[in-house]
C-alpha cells in the first residue's frame, strides 16, 4: 500500500488504539496521540523523495475499487498543490499536540480529545489526497464531526452556540456540494455511459453554462464558507474564540485551507466557464475581505478574535491569488496557505499559552509581559512578524507573489457586460497591498499591549506566570524554524508546485476556450471524443 494510504490510516489506527486504553490513563492517551502524530509526520516525509517535481499530474496514486456497482474507488494521490498541504497538516498536528495547552483550560476527557484530534487529522489528510469525489466528500464530512466536538466539549463559555453555528454553516455548504457532486455523477453517466466519481474523469466533463453555474455555486458556497470569504465569515471569530487552543490551531492552520484548496482543485478546473464568469465578483469579495478583516482586527480587544479576523484578511489574499488565474498569483496563493498555517497556527498557540498563564485574552489585562516571559515574548514577536509579512519570514513570499500576480493580471476580470465596473487588477492589487500597513497596525498594537509598557497589573506579576519551558520551547522553536526556512529558502516548495500549477492554469484556459465555443453544448467530455 502506498505511503498516502498509510498516512491517512495511521491516525485512525492511533485513534482506535487510544480508545482501547482505560479512561484514567491520561498520560498514555497523550503519548499515543503525540506519538501517532509524529509517526504520521515522519511517514509523510517519505513522500518527498518519491515525488517528482518535473511531473504535473498526480503521483503516488493508490486506486482500489470500493463499491464497484456505483463506480466508487478508494482513489488517492497527490500533485504539487496537495503535497505541501498534506505536509502542513502532518507538521502542525504533532506541534499542536506537543503543546500542553492544546486541550484548553477545560482539561477533561483527554482520551476523547486525543481521539477527536486524530480522527480530524485522518479526515484532513484524506480530503487533501482524495481523487474520488465520493471519498473526498466522506473525508470532508469526517473532519467536521471531530471539530464539532472539539469546540463543543472543550470550548469556552459559549461553546455550544459557537459549535452549532460552525456546524450549520459548514453543513449548508457541504450538502449543496453533495447535490452538485451527485448531479455531476449522473451527467457523466449520461455522457459516457459509465458511473464514476473519479476526480480526473469528472473534471473533464464540460456542462452547458447554466447547470455549470449552478454546480459551481454549490461548490463555491461550500468553499467560500470554509475560507471564509466575506460576508460568510462571522462563524469564524465565534468558533475561534470558543475553541480550545488545539482546535483553533488546526481550524486556522489547516481547515480553512480546504476552502481555498477546494476552489483550486475543484471549482476552477471543473467549472471553467462558471468560474470565469464569477471571478470578478469573487475577487471583489476577496478584496473587501482583506481590508475588512484587517479593520475588524484593529478594533478587537480579545487577542483570539483579533487573530481570527486577521485570518479573514490573510485568506482573502489567497482567494485573490487563485482568481488572478496566473502562475505567480496561484503559486503565491499556495505558498500563502502554508505560511498562514504556520504563522497563524503559531499565533493561536501563543494566545493559548497566554490564556493558560493568565486566564484572560483581553489585551487590556496584559502589559509588560516581556519582562516576565522574555523567551516567549521574543518567540511570539517573530511569529507576529511572520504574519505581518516581513521579508525573510514566511508571510512575505506568498503575499508578494499574489500581489505581483494580481497587479499584472491584465484583463482577467474585464467583462464587457459589466459597464466598466469590473475590478481593475492594478486597483485591486493596490487596495489589497494596503493590508501591508493595516496588518502592522493591528498586530503591533496587540504586541505592544501584551508585551510592552509597564508590568503594572498584579495578576501579571504572579509567580505562576512562567516563561515557556520544556515542551513549550519545542513548540515555538519548531514554528519559528519553519517560518524562517520558508521565508529564506522557499524554493523547494515553489519548484514542486510549479508544474502542477502551470498545468492547472493551461488546462483551465484550454477548457475555457473549448466551452466558450458553444456555451450551450450538452454535457460532454473534454477533450472531445476522448472519454
Amino acid at each position, binding site marked *: 500500500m502506498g505511503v498516502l494510504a498509510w498516512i491517512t490510516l495511521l491516525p485512525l489506527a492511533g485513534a482506535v488504539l487510544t480508545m482501547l486504553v482505560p479512561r484514567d490513563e491520561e498520560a498514555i492517551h497523550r503519548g499515543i496521540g503525540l506519538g501517532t502524530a509524529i509517526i504520521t509526520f515522519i511517514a509523510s516525509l517519505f513522500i518527498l523523495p518519491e515525488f517528482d517535481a518535473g511531473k504535473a499530474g498526480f503521483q503516488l496514486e493508490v486506486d482500489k475499487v470500493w463499491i464497484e456497482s456505483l463506480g466508487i474507488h478508494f482513489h488517492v494521490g497527490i500533485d504539487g498543490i496537495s503535497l505541501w498541504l498534506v505536509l502542513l497538516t502532518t507538521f502542525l498536528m504533532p506541534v499542536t499536540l506537543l503543546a500542553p495547552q492544546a486541550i484548553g483550560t477545560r482539561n477533561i476527557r483527554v482520551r476523547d480529545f486525543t481521539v477527536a484530534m486524530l480522527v480530524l487529522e485522518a479526515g484532513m489528510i484524506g480530503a487533501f489526497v482524495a481523487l474520488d469525489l465520493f471519498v473526498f466528500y466522506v473525508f470532508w464530512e469526517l473532519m467536521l464531526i471531530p471539530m464539532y466536538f472539539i469546540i463543543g466539549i472543550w470550548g469556552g463559555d459559549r461553546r455550544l452556540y459557537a459549535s452549532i453555528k460552525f456546524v450549520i454553516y459548514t453543513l449548508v455548504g457541504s450538502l449543496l456540494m453533495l447535490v452538485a457532486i451527485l448531479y455531476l455523477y449522473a451527467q457523466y453517466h449520461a455522457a459516457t455511459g459509465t458511473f464514476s466519481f473519479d476526480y480526473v474523469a469528472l473534471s473533464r466533463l464540460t456542462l452547458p453554462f447554466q447547470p455549470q453555474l449552478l454546480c459551481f455555486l454549490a461548490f463555491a458556497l461550500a468553499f467560500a464558507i470554509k475560507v471564509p470569504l466575506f460576508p460568510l465569515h462571522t462563524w469564524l471569530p465565534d468558533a475561534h474564540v470558543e475553541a480550545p487552543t488545539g482546535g483553533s490551531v488546526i481550524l486556522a492552520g489547516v481547515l480553512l485551507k480546504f476552502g481555498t484548496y477546494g476552489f483550486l482543485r475543484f471549482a476552477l478546473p471543473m467549472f471553467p466557464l462558471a468560474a470565469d464568469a464569477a471571478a470578478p465578483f469573487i475577487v471583489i469579495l476577496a478584496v473587501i475581505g482583506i481590508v475588512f478583516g484587517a479593520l475588524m482586527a484593529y478594533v*478587537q480587544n480579545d487577542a483570539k478574535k483579533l487573530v481570527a479576523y486577521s485570518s479573514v484578511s490573510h485568506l482573502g489574499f489567497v482567494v485573490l491569488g487563485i482568481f488572478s488565474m496566473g502562475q505567480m498569483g496561484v503559486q503565491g496563493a499556495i505558498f500563502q496557505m502554508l505560511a498562514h498555517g504556520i504563522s497563524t497556527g503559531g499565533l493561536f498557540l501563543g494566545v493559548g499559552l497566554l490564556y493558560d498563564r493568565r486566564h484572560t485574552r483581553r489585551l487590556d489585562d496584559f502589559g509588560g509581559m516581556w519582562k516576565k516571559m522574555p523567551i516567549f515574548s521574543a518567540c511570539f514577536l517573530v511569529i507576529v512578524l511572520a504574519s505581518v509579512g516581513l521579508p525573510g519570514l514566511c508571510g512575505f513570499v506568498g503575499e508578494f507573489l499574489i500581489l505581483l500576480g494580481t497587479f499584472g493580471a491584465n484583463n482577467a476580470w474585464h467583462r464587457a457586460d459589466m459597464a466598466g465596473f469590473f475590478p481593475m487588477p492594478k486597483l485591486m492589487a493596490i487596495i489589497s497591498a494596503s493590508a501591508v500597513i493595516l496588518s502592522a497596525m493591528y498586530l503591533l498594537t496587540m504586541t505592544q499591549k501584551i508585551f510592552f509598557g509597564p508590568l503594572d497589573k498584579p495578576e501579571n506579576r504572579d509567580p505562576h506566570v512562567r516563561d515557556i519551558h520544556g515542551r513549550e520551547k519545542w513548540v515555538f522553536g519548531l514554528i519559528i524554524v519553519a517560518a524562517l526556512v520558508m521565508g529564506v529558502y522557499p524554493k523547494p516548495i515553489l519548484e514542486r508546485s510549479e508544474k502542477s500549477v502551470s498545468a492547472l492554469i493551461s488546462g483551465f484556459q484550454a477548457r475555457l476556450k473549448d466551452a466558450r465555443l458553444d456555451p450551450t453544448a450538452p454535457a460532454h467530455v473534454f477533450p472531445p471524443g476522448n472519454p
Partner: protein
Amino acid sequence: MNAAESFNLRLIPLLPFIGATILILFGRHFKRQTVVMIAAGAIAGAAFVAFTGFFQALPSVAEEGGLRDVVWTWIATGDLTVDLAFRMDALSGLLCLIITFIGFLIHLYSAGYMEHEPDYARFFAYLNLFCGSMLVLVLGDSMPVMFVGWEGVGLCSYLLIGFWYSETANASAGKKAFITNRVGDFGFLIGMFLVFQATGTLRFSEINALSTPTSALAVAYHGMPLAFWVGLCLFIGATGKSAQIPLYVWLPDAMAGPTPVSALIHAATMVTAGVYMVARLHALYVLAPAMLAIVALVGAATALFAAIIGFAQNDFKKVLAYSTVSQLGFMFAGVGTANFSSGVFHLYTHAFFKAGLFLCAGSVMHAMSGSGDITKMGGLRKLTPWTHGVFLVCWLAICGVPIFSGFFSKDAIVAGAFATEIFEKVHLGWVGPAVGSILLLAALGTSFYMSRLYFLVFSGPSRADHETQHHIHESPSIMVGPLVVLAIGAGLGGLVGIPGGLFGHPEWNLLGEWLTSAVGPELEVPHQTEVMFMGISTVLAIIGIVLARVFYGGGYREPARAFAAAAPGFVKLVRDKFRIDELYDAVIIKPIRQLSSFLFRVVDRVLIDQILVGGVAAITDLFGRLARTFQTGDGQRYMAWFAVGAAVLVFLASRPPLPSELKVNVSGTTVTVDASRAGRPSQRGLTYSFDFDDDGRPEVQGTSAEARYTYDKGGPHTIRVTVHDPRWHKESSITSKVDVGSGSNN
C-alpha cells in the same frame, strides 16, 4: 567562475547575522565582555571583508558592474526569478564601508554607554541584526533583496527605539516608526510591481540598463512616462525610510531609543536608505525629470521646514533629530537635481559628523545624569573637554565652514541645483534655482540652530542644579575613542570630494570620479558659479553662527528672551512642531479607528451576523415553529390530520387526468392530438374518446392518449376529448379549437 563572482560578498551581512543569532540564543548566559567581543567582532569581520572587497577585488571590475555573489535562487515562479544575490559596485561598496566602519565605532562606544544596562545582550543582538540588515539593503542585487534589508532595518529600528519597552511612550514611538515606514513600504511594493510589469525584471542593473527613452519605462501612462509613476511610488517608500515630508514624523519620536542607536540608525545609516535607493535607480529617475523635480522640491522643503522646527527644540537629541531630517532633505535635493554623486557625498560626510554629534549628545547626557534638556546645560566646554572638541569639529562641519567636510558636500548640492539643466527638458527650468535658494535659506537656518545648540550646551555658566553639576564628568575612553575617530572623519572627510570646478582639477574630486561607474558622472559646475556659491555658503554659515552668538552666547541672552516674548504664539507653534502629529492623528489615525469600530459594531455584528445570518436562521426557525404546531403528540388530532390528508389525496387523485390544454399538431388536414398529462404516459385503465367534430359521436376510442384524424374538408373544428376513469367512475372532457387547412390551430 570569473573574478567578479569569486568574492564572498555574502560574508559581509552574514557575519553580523551570525553574531545576532548567537547573542539571541545564548547571550543571556554570557559575560558582558563576551557579548561585546562577539558583537563587535562580527562587525569587525564584516568590515574586514568589506574593506578587502572594496580595495582589492572591486577596483578591477568596478567599470563592469562590480562584484556579484549569488547565494541561491530565492523566489522563482512563472516569469519571475529573484536570486538571493549581492552586488558590490562603487556605490554599494562605499555604503558598505560607511556602515561597517561607523557601525564598528558605535559598537565600541555602546560598550561603554550601555554599561549599566541589564539587558546588555539583547541590545547588542539587535545592533548586530541591524548591521546585517543594512548591509543586505545596500548589497541587494535586486529590489526584493533590497526590500528584505529595507524591512529588516525597519524592524531593528522598531526594536531599538522600543528597547526600554517598560515605558509605554518608547514602545509607542517604535510602533509609530514601524507603521509610518510601512506606509512607505506600500509605495515601494507598488513601485516594484510597476517596474516588473514594464521591464520583466527586478534587478537594479537590468532596470537601469532598460531605462532608455525607447523602453517600456518611457511609454506614457496617464500623461506621464511610466518611469514617473515608478519613481513616485518608490519615492513614497523613500520618504518613509528617510523621514521626508510627509512621512518624517516618526524620526523625532525615534529619539526614545538609546543614543548610540540614534547615531547609527537614525543618523548615519538607515535613514539614508531612501537617498541610496534613488541613486541606485538613477537612470530610471533621469528618465522622468518631472519626478526628479518632485524629489528635489520635497527634499528642499523638508530641509527648510525641519531646520525651522529645529530653532525651538529644547531637547538635545530632538534638535539633532530635526537636523537629520533637514540634512536628509539636502541629500534628496542633491539626487533630485540629477546630481547623484553630490547626494551620496553628503550622505557620506553626514554619516561622520552626525554620528559624531549624536555620540557627543550621548556623552553629554551621560555627564548630565541622563538629562537631555539643553535649557539646563551650559559650561560643558571645560568639564568635558574631549566631547567639546569633537562637538566643535562636527558643529563646524554641519554649519558648512570651509575645509570641514560638510562644506564641500553641501556646496556640491547647492551649486549643482543652480547649475543643473535637467529640468529644462520638461519646461520646469525654475525648479533648479528655486531648490538652490531654499537650500541656501536652510543652510543659514542650520548654522543658526546648530550654533544655538553649541552655545547653550558648552558656553557660559552651567544652568544645571547643584546635584547634577556635581556629577558632571568626561566619558570613559571607550566612548571618547570612537568620538575622536569620527571627528577626524568629520573634519577631513570632505577632502575626497573637492569640486572639480573649484581649482579646475576634476581629478581632485576622488569621490565623484569613483562613483561615475555607479551613478553617472558628476554634474559639471562652471568655475565661477562654484566659487560664487562657496562664498555665499561661507557667508551664510558665519551669519548663522554670529546671530546665534548674539542670541545665545554664554546662555540665554536678552535678544532671545525679547524674541520669545514678542511672538509667544509663533514660538510655541514651532516648539510644538507645527502640530503635524496632532493633524495626522485627527485626519488619519482616528478616522481609521472610528471607521473600523463602526464597521465592526454595525456592519459585522448587526448587518451581517444578526440580520443576514440571523435572518436566515429566523426563517428556518419560523418553518420549524409552523411544523411544530402540528406535532402535538395528541393521537386524536393526528387522526384528524390524517383524515384531512387522506381527503386531499383523494381529491388530487380524482382530478380529471387531462392536461390543462390539448397538444394539437396540424399538418394539412390531418390533426394529431396528445391528451396525456404533463408529458407523462397515460395512466393505466383510462379510456379516451376523441370527438373531432364535437358532435357527440367519438371518431376514435381506446386506451391510447394519442389519436390522429383526417378531416374531409378544411375550416374551423372543435375537438372534444373525453376521458373515463373506471376507478372513480368519473368522466371529464376538454375541448380545443382547430382551424384545418389554413395551417393555424387552437
